[in-house]
Structures are given as structure tokens and as C-alpha cells.
């Protein structure tokens, strides 16, 4: 079941298209990675899900019904723009923001104290926020998103500015919430984080959706069927092997299989014929897929622009 459904949503800012016909869903107890280069439209998309901006076209459905202001109480949000009341005490700010999420003051205070304890900030509860380090402020802001035990959590770059110890701490919090049934949209540029935590990914570029699916699906669509093998067998004899290239002084080979051929079948065939000392299916890192898609999209756009200008030039000549 989907907790959030974004259906053909578009948004423009005064003649600039920020999001164009984006559709995706966030399933129950799922972590969805939202990827895209800077200025791709991620923040606009998240702001629309939070009801901060309204879509020009399309619809956002939350918990089975069109998004309403009341849904804000069920969604936790850590925006990319970090900000808190710097002059005020940590606990006071958390209590106030908890109340705005529909909690009673006493409850908000109690839950805030629990989270401060979990994130090792209990001793700073009465300190003004401006006295906290950037990383500590970042954790306080994360607590704001978690206070109301949200059903959906939207995190925009949750690990930026954190040291390795705190990165681990925050990752564990995300995992714990996920296990407890929370659905998460994780917007980040850290591909390893997506590979580590996310079930599915959505990538947008220049406002358009360019990739959407589970990590496996994304990879299988993008992988070039590259396998590393160490064997004495003659690999060229197999008819579905596209190319063989020796590496590591001729002991190992880079083998590219025909599209649609599973690496598992290749391994079974090799084992039936002789000894295989090393076998590795080469997975394209998500980062490479990201860069490849962004470059491809930019090239396509450049091509379109060239076509347009050439066409324009011809029109003028005509």
C-alpha cells in the first residue's frame, strides 16, 4: 500500500519549469532515495509533498486521500535549508515545534527529552541553540522531524555536516524508524547512503523523472553485463559471449555477455566444463549510473537545442 502518491505533478516558477510530470509512490515501510543534481527540482518536489508549495498540475495523495493540511502532522520533514531559533533553548524550541505538529506541550517536552538522550544531546537541553556545534544543531533539527512519530519521514541531506560517529548514529535512527514501520524519502547526493539504505530510487533531472525503480531493477537496466573470470577454459567458444579481454597478466578476463544473458547461466556453463578460480559480476555503481544519466540528459538537451537552432536557421533562410 502506498502512503504517498505523486501523480503527474508539475510546478513552475515564473516561466521556469521546476518539476515536470513527475509520478511516483512511497510504499509503506519503504525507504525511497530521491536523487538528482543540484537544481533538479528535488526541493520543490519535497515542498509540494509537505504542502508548502502547491502543484500547478497533477495531484498528491497522502494516506489514500488528497493531501490536506492535517497530513502535515503525520509527516516529519528535515529540509535542506537548516534553521532554528538560535537564541532560544534547545528544549523550548523542540517543545514549540512539537506543539505545532499537534502534540501537547508536556508530551512534546517528554518526547524531546527522550530523543535528546538517544542522540547524546541530553546535557545540552537547556543551552541556547547558537551555543551548539553545527553537527549538534543538525541533530536537533533531525529530532524536530521525528518528534511526532511520523508515518512518513522526509529527509533532505540528513548526513551533511556530521562526523563519522554521528553519521552512524543517524543511520541507525533511520534504520530503527524504518523497522518500526516508518516510510522514508531520502534526498541525498551520497550514493553510498542510497545503496546502503534505500529499497527504491527516483532520480529527477531538470525537473523530469529519469529513473525510478528498485535498486536491482535500476542496476539491471543500466549494467553492461560485465563479468570478471579467472579460468583456463576457452571463453570465446560460448556463443553468448560478446567480447573477452585478458587482464592481470592474462590470468583473469573481462567478459561482456550478450544483453539478456544472466551471469548465473554463464557461471553454470563454465562449471559444467571445468574449473573456475574467480568469478565476479561487475555491478555498475549508482554514482556511475547517476553521472551517466545526467550527462546523457544534458547531451540530449544540447542535441535538441542544436536541432532547434539549425531548424530555426533554415526557417530564416526559407
Amino acid at each position, binding site marked *: 500500500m502506498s502512503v504517498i502518491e505523486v501523480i503527474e505533478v508539475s510546478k513552475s516558477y515564473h516561466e521556469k519549469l521546476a518539476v515536470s510530470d513527475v509520478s511516483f509512490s512511497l510504499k509503506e515501510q519503504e525507504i525511497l532515495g530521491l536523487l538528482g543534481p543540484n537544481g533538479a527540482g528535488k526541493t520543490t518536489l519535497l515542498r509540494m509533498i509537505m504542502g508548502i508549495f502547491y502543484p500547478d498540475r497533477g495531484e498528491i495523495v497522502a494516506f489514500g486521500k488528497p493531501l490536506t493540511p492535517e497530513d502535515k502532522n503525520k509527516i516529519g520533514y528535515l529540509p535542506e535549508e537548516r534553521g532554528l531559533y538560535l537564541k532560544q533553548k534547545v528544549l523550548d524550541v523542540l517543545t514549540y*515545534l512539537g506543539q505545532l505538529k499537534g502534540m501537547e506541550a508536556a508530551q512534546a517536552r517528554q518526547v524531546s527529552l527522550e530523543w535528546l538522550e538517544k542522540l547524546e544531546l541530553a546535557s545540552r537541553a537547556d543551552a541556547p541553540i547558537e551555543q551548539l556545534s553545527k553537527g549538534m544543531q543538525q541533530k536537533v533539527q533531525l529530532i524536530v522531524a521525528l518528534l511526532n512519530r511520523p508515518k512518513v519521514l522526509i529527509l533532505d541531506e540528513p548526513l551533511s555536516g556530521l562526523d563519522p560517529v554521528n553519521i552512524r548514529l543517524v543511520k541507525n535512527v533511520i534504520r530503527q524508524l524504518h523497522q518500526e514501520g516508518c516510510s522514508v524519502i531520502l534526498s541525498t547526493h551520497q550514493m553510498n547512503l542510497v545503496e546502503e539504505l534505500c529499497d527504491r530510487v527516483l532520480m529527477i533531472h531538470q525537473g523530469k523523472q529519469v529513473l525510478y525503480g528498485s535498486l536491482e531493477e535500476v542496476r539491471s537496466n543500466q549494467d553492461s553485463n560485465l563479468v570478471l573470470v579467472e579460468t583456463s577454459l576457452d571463453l570465446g567458444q560460448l556463443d553468448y559471449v560478446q567480447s573477452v579481454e585478458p587482464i592481470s597478466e592474462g590470468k583473469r578476463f573481462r567478459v561482456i555477455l550478450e544483453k539478456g544473458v544472466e551471469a548465473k547461466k554463464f557461471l553454470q556453463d563454465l562449471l559444467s566444463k571445468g574449473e573456475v578460480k574467480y568469478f565476479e559480476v561487475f555491478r555498475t555503481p549508482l554514482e556511475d549510473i547517476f553521472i551517466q544519466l545526467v550527462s546523457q540528459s544534458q547531451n540530449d538537451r544540447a542535441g535538441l537545442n542544436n536541432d532547434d537552432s539549425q531548424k530555426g536557421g533554415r526557417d530564416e533562410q526559407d
Partner: protein
Amino acid sequence: MSKIKIISKREFIVTVKRRGYIIATFGIPLFFLVIGLIALIPNWLSLQKTLESKKMGVVDYAGVLRLELAGKLAEEFKGNRADFYSYLMGENQDREKFIGRIELRAYSSKEEALGALEKGEVDGVYLIPKNYLEKGEVELYQKSKSPIGRLGGFELFLRRLLVASLSYKRVDAALQKRLQKPMHTVEFVRDREGEYRKTHFLKDLSKVVVPYFFAFLLMFSILTTSAYLIQGMSEEKENRIMEILLSSVSSQELFIGKIIGLGGAGLLQFFVWMLICFWPITFLLPFIPLSWKVFVGGIVYFLLGIALLGSLSTGFGALGRRFHESHQFAMFWSMVCIIPIFFFSVILDAPNGFLARFFSYLPVTSPVCMMMRLSTERVDWLDIPISILLLVLATWLSIKVCSRLFRVGVLLYGRKPSWKEILYWLRRDL
């Protein structure tokens, strides 16, 4: 608790706890009190001097004064506080009642009198020349010009003494009394019901002071409140917390909550100012005749005025990048709101005239203008519901439009939108 209530409560508490707010709330009236006291000291000293016994020298070359009448006349010049009030109320014109004790010293020659003046034995010397009866001219000699009229009322004493002396045994006692006080004007002015009623000095004074007081009260309250609104909003913009807030509440809830909370803080501040500044003149309150309608109307216009001008200031103020820029945007509306103050005398002369009505129907100026008109007690009562209705509609519209501006302004961090963009966002929501 509704979100608007939570926001307004927080905004109110945070604002009243600010050091700047506390200093302004108690410091500004104390500053003005100190300044006022410093200004009052010389006046008070001078008044004391006026009220203390005056020693005057008289040289009567014309031989018209009957000095034996001076003692009885001096008795009439001793008054008390009640005499002073009744004079202020216009019940009598016995100005001599609060002039003080008069001591007359007669000298036979000008030289002798001026010698006494030099020695400080008298405060001044009146010389009645030989040709007084012919010309009516009396010479006054003093070391320096008295700041309080002609030697603090002594001239009135001398005038009465001359009348008493000249008419002595020539006319009967009743006529002599009338000659002393030939006329006492009792003024009657037509009221709203068309009846002529006796005027009242303090009442008349309050007709000028009260409208001014209320109009200034509203104006200052709006100025301070909008300054707090802009300051709070600029801080939130600079702290980048708006996105967090708008992920929990709507921009309209945030906007209204801020106006209520900070408007409350502004009103509280002004209430404190009133308490501190006005207790010294509370003894005058019984003489300021205001009906309950003025107070109720005043509160309604006060609240609607703050809601309208607060929303306009905040909405337009949100478009500024920094505090000073936001303040400039907000100041425009504050200046528009106080325009009726500049037409004070015109509105007071004709509280139901064209200009008064124009400013009353124009929502931005109506709180200040109606406050003036209401306190004259001569306002056409039909104008009250009309102006309130227009003000309510304008406030509603302003909150609608300005909360949009507010959303655009606060989310466009560090960027000032162009007027073209502003119009674009007003037509379609962000």
C-alpha cells in the same frame, strides 16, 4: 490548542521577554517622565514665585488711589484649590482667587520707589502719572521683564483698586461691585440634538486633547507593533526556520498567529506606557467626559487597525531581504495610516465633512480618523457600522493577499522579488 493560539502565545512570550522590549517598555516612559520633570522644574519654581506674596511699590502722582481700600481688596485675592477648579470649569471668572497674597507699598516719589526696587524691597513699581485721568496711562518699572505676565496678577489688583478708588462713594455698593467685574461671559453652543448647552472649559479642552490622544495611541501602537512583527519575521528569515514552520502550519496560520501575538505585545507595551505616563494627570480624568461608546468603538478600531496594518506591514515587509529593507516596506503603510493626523483641525472642525468621511471609509486611514471623530462625540453614528464593515472586509482581504506575499517573501531566501514577480505570485499561489 489551535496552532494559531500556539503561535500567538509563543510570539507574545518571546517578544515580552526580549531585553529590547523590556527596556523600551519601561525605559521610554521613564525617559519622558524625567525629561518632563526637568522641564517642569523651572515652571514650578516660577509658579511658586508667582503664588508667593508680591510686594509692589506704587507712586501715585495723580492722587487717585485710596490705599485704605487695598487691605479689603487683598482679602478677595486669597483663594484655594476649589476656586481654581471652578475657574477651570468656567463656573466663575474669579481669576484673582489664585493669584496669591498682595502687599502694596506706597512711595511718595519715583526716586524713592526705584531705590526700594533696586534694594529688592519690592518686586516692581507702578507709577501713576499726574495726567492719569486724562490719558489712562500707568508706568511699570521692574528689574527684568516678568516671565509670568504683568508681575503675576498684580496688575489685576491695581486695576481693581483704581476702579474702587475712582468710584468710591460716587456710586452705590452694587454698582461698584459690577464696575469691579463688569462682565463674565457664559458661552452656549448648539449640541447634536439642536439644543444650546453651556460650554465647559475642560470638556472643550478634552475635545481637542482626547481625539489627539487616541489617534496618537493608535499610531504609536501600530508603529511599535509593526516594528516587532518585522523584527521577528526578519530573524526567522535570517535563521532559515520558515520552512520548518511551514511544514507544520499553513502560512495563513503563521501569519495570523504572529499578528495576534506581536499585536498583543505591542498593546501591552502601550498600556504600560499609559499607566506610567498618565498617572500624574489622573486627577483630571473626572473632567474628561467620554461616553462608553467612545471606549468600545476605540477598542474595535484599535484591534481592526492593528490587524489591517499589521498584516500589510508583515506581508510587504516579508519581501525585504534584511530587517532594514523590510522596515522600509512596512513604514510605507504606517505613514499612510497617520495621514488623518495631518488633517486634525479640518476633521475636528467638521467631523462629518467630506474629508472626515473620506478618511473614515478608506480602511487604511479609518482607524485613526474614526478615533478622532468618535471622541468629538459629534460623529454621524451611521458612519461607524459602515467604516467598521469596510475595515473588516479590507482586513480579511489584506490577510488573504498578504499571507501570500508573506509565503513568497519568506521562502525566497536572500532574494528580493521584482514587482513583476510579486504580481505574478499574487495572481497564482506559490
